């Protein structure tokens, strides 16, 4: 009998993350492929394969398996979500460009925080460029770094603005959109991320829709409530798209998912303190969510059952 080759520890750990039943059925084959693939790249190859198997395991555990429509929806939502994130960076980048001195003035801890935030605001447009070029690994890397830096900025923000009223809201609103968009990019299966004409059209429309409100706001600076108007737009998109969602119509669900990170960032601001607008938005979001859940769970009629629609 041929001896079984030694499996490096990073690969063993990654394989352990697979659901038990799945690992029992496919673990041996996955190990075999990973060992052969890693052999060509050496030690770095082992880590790359381990990272990819980890991502695959997490997708399976999140219900984004190969036979699940959710995986298709996430793959459709991830690129527009990056476009929306990049659009929301445009305003701040324009503000920095107008007054670069604000990056250099003030306390040292404030400067560190501003530098981290500047890096976040540069990473998302970079991720969008990578998406446009079809460089998905680079796009995921930029999105992942953007999300990681957003998390790193939390303690920095707390240090700088310790006595700020509503600090929790500020922190959540400032990190949630980036972290959620980063997770969305990581969750999208690579083989379903496409650069077909249909995908490019959807991405172009989202990019324009993401940039125009911020560009208008940059040209005509307005008071605080109006500064949040572009994010309010995404909240309206989420509610409308959820209301249009249907079992055999996945595009509205993907659009709602793409706009959700920025919309939630806006909704959080309205929840502290909870006033009438916040309450109304919560009710609308909940109602749209219920409508979407009921319509997507409803059993398909025989006429609807065939084919893969809207994909």
């Amino acid at each position: 009998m041929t001896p079984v080759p030694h499996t490096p520890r990073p690969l063993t750990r990654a394989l352990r993350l697979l659901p038990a039943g799945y690992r029992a059925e496919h673990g041996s084959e996955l190990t075999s492929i990973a060992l052969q693939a890693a052999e060509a790249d050496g030690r770095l190859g082992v880590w790359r394969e381990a990272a990819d198997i980890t991502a695959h395991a997490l997708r399976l555990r999140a219900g984004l398996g190969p036979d699940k429509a959710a995986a298709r929806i996430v793959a459709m939502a991830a690129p527009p979500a990056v476009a929306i994130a990049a659009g929301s960076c445009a305003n701040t980048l324009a503000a920095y460009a107008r007054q670069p001195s604000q990056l250099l003035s003030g306390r040292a801890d404030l400067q560190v925080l501003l530098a981290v935030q500047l890096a976040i605001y540069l990473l998302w447009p970079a991720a969008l460029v990578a998406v446009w070029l079809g460089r998905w690994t680079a796009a995921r890397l930029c999105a992942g770094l953007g999300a990681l830096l957003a998390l790193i900025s939390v303690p920095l923000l707390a240090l700088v603005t310790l006595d700020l009223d509503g600090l929790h809201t500020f922190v959540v609103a400032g990190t949630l959109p980036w972290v959620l968009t980063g997770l969305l990019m990581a969750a999208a299966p690579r083989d379903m991320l496409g650069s077909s004409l249909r995908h490019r059209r959807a991405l172009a429309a989202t990019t324009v829709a993401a940039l125009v409100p911020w560009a208008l706001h940059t040209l005509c600076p307005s008071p605080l409530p109006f500064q949040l108007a572009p994010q309010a737009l995404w909240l309206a998109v989420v509610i409308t798209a959820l209301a249009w969602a249907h079992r055999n119509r996945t595009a509205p669900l993907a659009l709602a998912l793409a706009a959700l990170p920025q919309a939630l960032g806006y909704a959080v601001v309205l929840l502290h303190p909870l006033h009438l607008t916040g309450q109304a938005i919560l009710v609308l979001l909940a109602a749209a969510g219920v409508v979407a859940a009921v319509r997507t769970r409803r059993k398909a009629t025989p006429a609807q059952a065939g084919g893969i629609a809207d994909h």
Partner: protein
Amino acid sequence: MSDLHLQEPQLLLLTALAEAPRHGYGLITEVAAISAGRVRLRTGSLYGALQRLVHDGLIRVEREEIVDGRARKVYALTELGSQLVQEETARLRALVGELERRVSPRSSVRTRSATA
């Protein structure tokens, strides 16, 4: 059939299988070769893609074998997968033909004389 919109990695996998049935690592190397090194599928991504193609009825597990003490599956195109590859080939051929027609020197001369 037209409801199935293939993304590039999926089309590359089907192309790799159009010639002959292959096992997992064979597909990784073949996809890298077909795409001139541009698309390098890793194990998890490959496995997810293969299972999705099996689920969609485009490929099937032809046989299972044991190599170096580990199980490995050999994948092959199904009739549906084969038909889809032929349709994609015809579509891409028509597109390339149209591109060649439009960028050919004779076409450029015609365009210049039309604008003059």
